[in-house]
């Protein structure tokens, strides 16, 4: 009896969670106007892929897709390199005021990003970087959370391993490259997914720094598209599918690492 109750609750919640996605996919494949009927349809009468065709032909969604891919990959690559070096340094190097500096960084995580937006925008404008990929990539190259995540992981690497490499005459950078990077691979994957998905899904910052419509990322393009096509439910749903699909695939392939990252992030430093 209790078991039935538990299962029906679990399935009910699963249906509620999944239904919006199901309807999104289904409506994106309906004929024009079919998503606006009463009673609402859950499944298309027959499959119609013309909305996807329209998105990629006349509405040039492929350009925005390229923008999103390049920017997200750019942030991911740079942030992995810079945060892993920083995190490793905070974990294993010995220097004065190390803990003071690190605690200062951790504490400042409470400052909401919106505070910095206007000054950063003005800085990027003076550097001539507004409406370039760099406007999103450069400020995203380092993050306190990323440094924190790598640092926590590096503590599990025994000092003796680093000492041994030093005895062999390896330079600090070579140790990082040949010893630390291979050993921290799991957390690098985790941080990589966080950076990629965080950048892909972000809305406010790209909205601010990409004022030229050719530079829009997918979420900004989608929000903009709705201004003109709010009545084209099927078209908007197709656009949503295209926006969501890439992150969903990344997540489904690498979900183990993502979940681990959330749990590590929740352990107090």
């Amino acid at each position, binding site marked *: 009896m209790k078991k039935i109750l538990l299962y029906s609750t679990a399935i009910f919640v699963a249906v509620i969670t999944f239904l919006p996605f199901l309807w999104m996919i289904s409506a994106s494949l309906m004929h024009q106007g079919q998503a606006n009927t009463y009673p609402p349809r859950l499944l298309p009468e027959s499959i119609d892929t013309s909305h996807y065709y329209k998105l990629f032909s006349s509405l040039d969604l492929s350009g925005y897709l390229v923008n999103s891919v390049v920017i997200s990959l750019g942030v991911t690559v740079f942030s992995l390199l810079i945060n892993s070096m920083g995190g490793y340094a905070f974990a294993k190097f010995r220097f004065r005021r190390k803990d003071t500096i690190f605690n200062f960084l951790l504490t400042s995580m409470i400052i909401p990003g*919106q505070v910095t937006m206007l000054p*950063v925008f003005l800085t990027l404008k003076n550097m001539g970087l507004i409406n370039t990929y760099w406007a999103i990539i450069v400020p995203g190259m380092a993050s306190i959370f990323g440094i924190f995540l790598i640092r926590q992981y590096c503590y599990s690497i025994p000092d003796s391993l680093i000492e041994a490499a030093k005895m062999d005459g390896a330079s600090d950078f070579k140790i990082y490259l040949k010893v630390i990077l291979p050993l921290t691979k799991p957390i690098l994957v985790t941080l990589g997914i966080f950076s990629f998905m965080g950048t892909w899904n972000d*809305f406010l910052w790209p909205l601010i720094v990409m004022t030229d419509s050719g530079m829009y990322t997918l979420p900004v393009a989608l929000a903009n598209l709705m201004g003109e096509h709010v009545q084209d*439910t099927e078209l908007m749903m197709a656009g949503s599918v295209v926006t969501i699909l890439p992150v969903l695939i990344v997540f489904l392939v690498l979900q183990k690492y993502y979940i681990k990252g959330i749990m590590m992030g929740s352990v107090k430093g």
Partner: protein
Amino acid sequence: MKKTTFSTLALFLGPGLAVLLIFFFLPVMAAFILSFTDFNIYSLGNPDYLRFVGFDNYMKLFSDDMFWTALKNTFYFVIAGGPLSIAASLGAAILLNSKLIRFKGIFRLTYFLPVVTTLVAVAIVWRYIYHPRYGLLNYFLGFCGIDPLDWLGDPHLAMPAIIIMAVWKNFGYNMIIFIAGLQNIPEELYEAASLEGASAWQKFRNITLPMLAPTTIFITIITMIGYFQLFAEPYVMTQGGPLNSTLSIVLYMYQEGFRWWNIGYSTAIAFSLFIIILIGTVIQFRVQKALEK
């Protein structure tokens, strides 16, 4: 181990700290200074027009009805949406932690899907789900005998609609953290309680909740900080309307700063948000200290 040389430190920490300094710490200070100026579209063209105005921007906030509305709406979202979202996360975590349930992986994955998907895209999907005539929600509510509601068009319903969507979008994230917390509770505690004839509710009240307290505090803080930054949902679903009933602090900051270029005023709004979050966090830590005693 001997001290690391300066050149090595500069190589490893230099890039990261430089980026954080230029794009985070200096901008925080710059924003603080800007919030005491009348920096606007005129001084953007010619900095000679820039003047220090002392606390004028902050004083103006106090008499600005729009700011009070944004403040009230944001608090509504945080105070109603936050606990609802945390309760949903805890409920889902307890459900999936039960020994009676199989296929845990699939359920967990499904519950988690909204978390990883693009907020703008799902906000658009929900906009249609909330449609008064053709939306799925009203259709299903019709089965329960509830008349169609104009979710996003009614000033009293727009914020609840955004809260429902936010709970749906976010509960999976905290659920994962709660599951980890639940698995750290020793099984013997429950067995001992069962031997003494404790009911399920008593076990929840006297074992689960106290043992989860540190996790709950952590979740409350990150959820609160995140919810105070409400922006994309109203931007996409309601543009802050109807009748400003979903205008949030960040949306107002965005409009003042990036639409009207009232930069000085906009940074004052952003700093007020920071101060509110700071106070909220300090209160949470105090509660944690009090609970530990």
